[in-house]
């Protein structure tokens, strides 16, 4: 089964990472910023797995799993923060949320 080269997968990973970075920088809703962070993490994951296939080494997949766990933890804390912000009836806008004081 001869598919495309690893370079193509890496190109997709780079585009995904840049798309996520653009979303993080461009959007103001913290929900969409979190979603864009997920895209960035997935771009990193795709690169890890592509290199793991290139070298025939399972360690890359191990770290992809670790990244998935970190992403789940990040989503939990981020969503908790967003719900807390919404319950205080503040604007969901990362430009206006510049004070960390409760």
């Amino acid at each position, binding site marked *: *089964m001869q598919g495309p080269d690893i370079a193509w997968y890496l190109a997709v990973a780079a585009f995904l990472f840049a*798309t996520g970075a653009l979303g993080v920088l461009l959007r103001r809703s913290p929900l969409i910023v979190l979603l864009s962070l997920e*895209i960035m993490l997935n771009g990193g994951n795709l690169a890890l797995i592509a290199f793991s296939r290139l*070298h025939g080494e399972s*360690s890359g997949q191990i770290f992809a799993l670790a990244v998935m766990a970190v*992403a*789940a933890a990040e989503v939990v804390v981020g969503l908790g923060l967003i719900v807390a912000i919404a319950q205080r009836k503040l604007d969901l806008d990362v430009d206006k949320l510049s004070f960390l004081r409760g």
Partner: protein
Amino acid sequence: MGNVVVWIVWIVAAFSCLASGVAVISFTNPFFSALALIGNLASLAVLYLLLSAEFVAAGQVLVYAGAVMVMFLFVTAYLGGRADAPWAGGPTWQQFGAVLAAGAILVEVIVVIGLKAGGRLSHEAKIDSGFGSPRRIGEVFLTDHLLAFEITSIVLLVAAVGAVILGAHSRRRPDTIGEQIHEGEVHARP
């Protein structure tokens, strides 16, 4: 023949992956963005399968598209339809800078990978049929990478505790008199 099928599957998966990624950051409604991210994760799982990472693909669909995104959709539905209009009022210097920075990141990543690994990316290592199977992943995870495994469990525990604390904190009684009057618990003196 099999070669062509693999290429077709790859092209469809990669295109839907990139298109849904762009859709996530361009929808104004966070609910649609979350749905687009589910499509992104599913097409990434197909790419993982093509890279013979079966266990990671299964985990991606179960953990990410299943658990994480359902929680995301619940929170989005709880917060209600708060759409933000990212392109209202024309481009600002901030948005211009964001596009510039993201383009710079893309160029940097591609140039660095091309410089450091350019010639070697077409020689894939020979792998046996067990590569990426749950058995192999479990063996490597619990022998060579035991520390990463334990650290992952601690990270998850800390995140769970943090989420509970955040939830409890946001539900505490309003502490200033003004907030209590506002909530109707304390009546203002005549």
